């Protein structure tokens, strides 16, 4: 019990409180509790035992390393799922044993064998001493005087100015070409045009209007998309979903005359942030986006009925060609996909 020279008696010594009325403002830190030795520090047999545990753990590590090397040479991979799985499992278990053995051994060593008596070290204020600071300020002042910058105002401007300008030498060429053509009007058009056939994704077979039965859903790409210079970019804008509705179920149409005998084609790119909207529930005619769950009613002009999207999915006006295949009447009449600043201009 630490008895410090203080105004009052120590707070923890109760019987004295009654006789020593002046009470301190704060409690006194009682100081570090007494250190208790571990069993291994006093019992030689326990000491031996703790050493053996550490040795055993290091042995596990070595065995793990050997096991991993054996697995590497003995177990081929890449023939089928079973060999890949087996290789991964045994290499991994070997690696884990090799690492955990070392880790647990070192920690066990530190915990059970190294001294566990807590030590105390004093902290020092982080701020540098007043003389040091004075010297530092003096050095800086000397340097500034040496440089002569305080007397030459123009020099200051020149330094700041040229340093501020020089990054342009890197930034301008970078920004100039990093965005490709910078022709952002491409967001507003897709490769759909009058007479272009609707084909099945991914096989590319054209679609006969007669085959599109009520309740079916068709994932559609424009004919010949693979022959365009940038098929993925075109596909990212042009994908379409085709459904046929019972005329009695249709509540409204987005583009009058844009459908063909109850067959509707809508952009498959969500007007929220651009995921493919593809979950079609044929009984309710609801189209759900699996990313953020915007729900569109295909029977009602692809209007949003739930979720974070605002605008209906743009409709692709379609008809049939003389062979009965579905074709587009034109490109989309508005930009597809997520909203952007000047999409209406």
């Amino acid at each position, binding site marked *: 019990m630490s008895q410090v020279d203080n105004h009052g008696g120590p707070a923890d010594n109760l019987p004295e409180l009654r006789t020593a009325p002046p009470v301190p403002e704060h409690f006194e*830190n009682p100081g570090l509790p007494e250190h208790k030795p571990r069993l291994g520090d006093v019992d030689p047999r326990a000491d031996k035992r703790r050493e053996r545990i550490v040795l055993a753990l290091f042995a596990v590590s070595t065995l793990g390393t050997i096991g991993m090397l054996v697995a590497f040479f003995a177990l081929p*991979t*890449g023939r089928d799922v079973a060999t890949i799985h087996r*290789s991964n499992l045994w290499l991994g278990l070997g690696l884990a044993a090799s690492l955990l053995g070392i880790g647990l051994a070192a920690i066990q060593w530190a915990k059970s064998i190294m001294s566990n008596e807590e030590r*105390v070290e004093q902290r020092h204020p982080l701020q540098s001493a007043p003389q040091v600071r004075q010297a530092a300020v003096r050095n800086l002042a000397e340097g500034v005087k040496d440089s002569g910058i305080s007397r030459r105002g123009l020099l200051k401007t020149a330094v700041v100015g040229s340093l501020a300008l020089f990054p342009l030498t890197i930034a301008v060429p970078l920004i100039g070409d990093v965005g490709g053509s910078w022709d952002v009007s491409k967001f507003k058009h897709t490769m759909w045009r009058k007479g272009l056939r609707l084909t099945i994704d991914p096989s590319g077979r054209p679609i006969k209007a007669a085959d599109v039965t009520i309740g079916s859903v068709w994932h559609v790409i424009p004919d010949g998309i693979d022959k365009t210079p940038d098929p993925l970019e075109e596909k990212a804008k042009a994908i379409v979903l085709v459904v046929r509705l019972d005329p009695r179920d249709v509540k409204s149409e987005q583009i009058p005359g844009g459908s063909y005998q109850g067959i509707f084609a809508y952009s498959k790119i969500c007007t929220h942030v651009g995921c*493919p909207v593809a979950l079609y529930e044929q009984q309710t005619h609801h189209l759900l986006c699996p990313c953020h769950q915007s729900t569109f009613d295909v029977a009602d002009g692809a209007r949003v009925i739930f979720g974070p999207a605002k605008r209906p999915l743009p409709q692709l006006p379609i008809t049939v060609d003389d062979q009965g295949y579905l074709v587009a009447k034109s490109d989309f009449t508005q930009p597809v996909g997520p909203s952007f*600043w000047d999409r209406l201009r």
Partner: protein
Amino acid sequence: MSTTNPTAPTGKAAAATADWLDQRTGVGVAVKGLARKLFPEHWSFMLGEIALYSFITLLISGTFLTMFFVPSADEVTYTGPWTALQGTTMSAAFASTLKLSFEVRGGLLMRQVHHWAALIFLAAIVTHMMRVFFTGAFRKPREINWVIGFVLLTLGLAAGFSGYSLPDDVLSGNGLRITDGLIRGIPIIGTYLSYFVFGGQFPGTAIIPRLFTVHVLLVPGLILALVGLHLALVFLQKHTQFPGSGRTNGNVVGYPLFPVYTAKAGGFFFVVFGVIALMAATMQINPVWNYGPYDPAPVSAGAQPDWYMLFLEGALRLMPGQAEVVFGSYTVPFNVLIPGLVVPLLLLGPLAVYPFVEAYATGDKREHHLLDRPRNAPFRTAYGMSILAEFFVLVLAGSNDLIATHFHLSLNDITWTLRFAFFIVPGIVFVLTRRVCLALQRKDREVVLHGHESGRIVRFASGEYVEVHTPLDEHERWIRVQHEPVRPIRIAPAEDSRGVRRPHYRSDVRRQRLSRLFFETRVEPVTPAEYAAAQEHRAIATGPGDAGHEQIVAGTGDHASRS
């Protein structure tokens, strides 16, 4: 105990090497200063180490992966062993991911180690920050290190996001597509920014190599540099410690760096790597071969990002679409911008500057090296918990489809519930947490003043029953009374003695208002005077006037344990 013999050959060799090095670098000074430097011990001080070691694991496994990964969008046709993809056209990035997974021995293991380590890296950063926040370890002089830590968190997110998209599979491709949608929504420059990122129209062929550079050079370089700074500051400022007997604001109580922490921390690196290896051996992660190469048309159910981005996904899901507005002929999609930019800023921004806000509210300019027990800082604890609760609501929203299928609920009902929860839950959590903190503080006072309930009931001669309370020993008591109460700041009156209006009065009033918000509701620790009074009361109750009382309390050994 000593296992090394200085005359052993290894000892001699080590001494010679050390001498050689010291003659050329004067490293002896550093060794002298650092070898026996003390670090306090607590399990929660290891959370940052988990983050550091999983980062090292990421560097090791990542280097392995770069030897086999081809960061290119060039088209190739797959001919490897995975039958479901044979003959499929895919990018070289995806094909090389398949090759290193299936045909390189240990490649799949390293890929899974890398991905598990990434998830654990961010989880460890978050838990480490929770520890630092709730214990007030960010107070002066450690504000800089808190900010560095915060930047490291955002860099960790950037590293995770850029790496997640590299294999060029359908799942991560849809993640990129969502990113593109987000970027495009930014007013005026959105479409140009989208071109800036993708080198033209989405998806293009530039994004994979660009992300690769970001992922293997830029972000890890920055993380390494900042981790170095972060650790250097920990060494310089010395680690904080929890309050306890013998621990003061002016000392460090702990074990030396060499050998105890060399072994513990060094060993812990192997444990972290080992646990990750165990997970990689037995648990499959990100099976890109199931998703297939990126194609803008398909998407699969359960399309979600890794857990650390899930809050953004959830925010996007919760936001109603009505927020998109058109000004004249210009579109501003607030339904994307609010969840994508505003919500993260509102949730994370205040956390980044919290140390400065709290310092402003306390007006405290002293160094703090003793940690707070979270209950002793009710406002801070309640605020931190409410932010965590908000993140949890958003994470649930990001997983709403899985909740729907696993608990047989309606997706739409979950979304509506969480829309309300987003506004209600943080408030409830704040109030509840603050109350719990205050209750715990009162409990501390109660225990200090009256001792632990012993469960022993005694009957007085008068027939009265009383439970005997065991007083605390000095160490138990100290932990409950050591903290200083933080009170709202007091400001000078609006006018000085001559009736002249003081210049900074208004800003002082604002500051006082903030300070009151933080500290008005509080429970102060027991003072020695209160303690003495309580003992006085006890003494009177057990005084000679009440013979029976005295006799029985004395008989419990109550007094005996005290002296």
